[in-house]
């Protein structure tokens, strides 16, 4: 009887230990990491060789006015991107070409191309909260920032990022990372003096292949009330090989006939 009782106790202990180990297994993946390691995970999750997607740019302006734009995009790494408006009619066919940190806009109705530079870089795309500067800059955080953990919970970790070059658009950033998905689901972008300028919130994610990808993000300017912009990705397809180089040259940007 005693032996039986001990066996049962042993089983219980083993069960408890197994549960504890099982509970600790995923945690082994998310705990005990440095800020730099978290940053690397975020960058890796958002990195890809090439992708094609279509999305909606939804802009809400003070006073309740809203605008919606359809876009089709091709992106290759950090360096190249080509986006084209599919609607509305007034903007249809306007294209953006990003090559490294330069950004061109082609206006088909006028058959003119401009290089976005100077003060224009800080303007919002279509008057929204997402600036041309945001569009042109590289998404890789670890190249531009040093990081330290400012707070941590079981499910998330918040990093304070300080730019190595304080002249960039956001010298300070605070990002909150979902430990399970490695998605930075909240990002507070601050200017000189650590003054918050914009907040980016990921509203929706989707599993695509072996990663969780943000498909609906909201950007809010903290300088204007009742104004926000959403990027809503409807379809995205990742490629393991780069696109043809010709896709991202000016000739293709200025091609006629869609």
């Amino acid at each position: 009887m005693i032996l039986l009782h001990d066996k049962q106790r042993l089983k219980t202990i083993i069960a408890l230990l197994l549960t504890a180990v099982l509970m600790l297994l995923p945690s082994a993946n998310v705990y005990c990491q440095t800020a730099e390691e978290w940053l690397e995970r975020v960058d890796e999750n958002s990195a890809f060789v090439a992708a094609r997607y279509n999305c909606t740019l939804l802009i809400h302006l003070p006073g309740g006015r809203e605008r919606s734009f359809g876009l089709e995009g091709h992106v290759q790494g950090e360096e190249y991107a080509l986006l084209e408006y599919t609607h509305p009619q007034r903007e249809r066919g306007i294209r953006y070409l990003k090559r490294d940190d330069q950004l061109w806009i082609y206006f088909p109705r006028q058959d003119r191309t401009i290089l976005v530079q100077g003060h224009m870089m800080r303007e919002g795309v279509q008057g929204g909260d997402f600036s041309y500067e945001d569009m042109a800059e590289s998404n890789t955080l670890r190249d531009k920032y040093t990081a330290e953990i400012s707070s941590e919970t079981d499910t998330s970790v918040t990093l304070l990022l300080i730019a190595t070059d304080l002249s960039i658009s956001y010298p300070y950033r605070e990002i909150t990372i979902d430990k399970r998905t490695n998605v930075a689901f909240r990002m507070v972008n601050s200017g000189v003096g650590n003054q918050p300028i914009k907040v980016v919130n990921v509203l929706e994610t989707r599993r695509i292949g072996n990663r969780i990808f943000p498909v609906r993000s909201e950007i809010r300017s903290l300088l204007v009330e009742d104004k926000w912009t959403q990027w809503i990705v409807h379809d995205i397809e990742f490629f393991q090989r780069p696109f043809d180089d010709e896709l991202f040259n000016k000739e293709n940007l200025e091609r006629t006939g869609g």
Partner: protein
Amino acid sequence: MNMIHLAARNVLRQPKRTVYTTIAIVVAVAAMTFMDAYIRGFIESYFETFIRLDAGHVKLMPSTSVERSRPTPLDQGIQHLNEVVRIAESTEGITDVSPRIRFPVLLEKETGVIPAMGIAFIPSREENLMNLQSFIIEGRMPTDSTDEIMLGNRLAEELGLGVGDELFMLASDSYGGLGPGLYQVVGIVNTGIGMLDRRQFYVPLSAAQFQLAMDDMALEVVCKVASGLNGSFEAKERLRNSLASAGFTNVSAVPWQEQGFVYQSVQPVNFVRGLLMFLLGILAATTVINTILMSVIERTREIGALRAMGFTRGTVIKLILTEAFLIGLVATIIGVVIGMSVALFLAQTGIDYTKMASGMDNFDLPFRLVIYPDPNVMTAVKSAFFGLLIALGAAWYPARVAVRLQPVEALRHN
């Protein structure tokens, strides 16, 4: 009658002194006549330019802009524009109605950018308002519903553009996005107002509405009133009632006097006019006092004799004032004739300050540099009154001096 006869004889007895007095009054009256006509012409030109190129007699604007006294942002313009224009046109006393949009852009040139102001209007509606066709120096006005542009002559020079060239521009649209526009230059205009010729261009309203995402919108609707400058307040009330009865309570009618500071800004000019009149009066009066006083002193014994013969103090004063009146009357007539003649002549030819201002490239004047004096009957009446007032006012003191002496003392005067 005897008094006038006696006074006339006294005036002619000292011809040199009479001539000096007359000249002093003639100069003052002529200067006053001309100056009045010149300032009237200047102010009218200033108002006319403001009304023609900007304000209209009455301007319809979004109420929010009027309340906040600030330029209307593109996203807060007048909506349902066609309906608003129709209501304004059918309002009694309104002869012309034209919607406009003013929008800033940075125009690119080889060495940088030029800040410029676009004026979008319906060209066919502006013939009696802006009337720019009479200032075109090359080409023509843009036509309605086209992508054509007319540039100020100095802006065209700076951009290196001429008729037939194309101009691409990026404006900020009503949502804050990019509003691209490609226009063909069809005209060059020289309004004679530096700040406009250097910075403004003119495009059809429909093209700007598309460029700025402002479908069926404008920032202002300019109205011309049949009764002219002074009919603006009555027209304002009528327009306000018409718009309110159609439900457009968010659109305000603003007469030109209440737009900006143009009307108020002439108040200092009126003050300067008053000051100049005062100084001219003092100058002329000093000469008149001097000559009449000399005359009185020289005639002390004669005045004493007149008093001894029974002339009362009042009669002597009346005699001296009559003398001054006669001189003043003749001088005033001559002064008014000279002043009016010069003013009328220059009203035809104008006084051209263009050359004088050519060296002041960065000093913008909001009016044309050719001033046309504007003499009228009131100018002549005011000047005549001014001349007689100087003559009589200045003679009062010598007259009082003349009667202060007792007849016996006056007779002893050497």
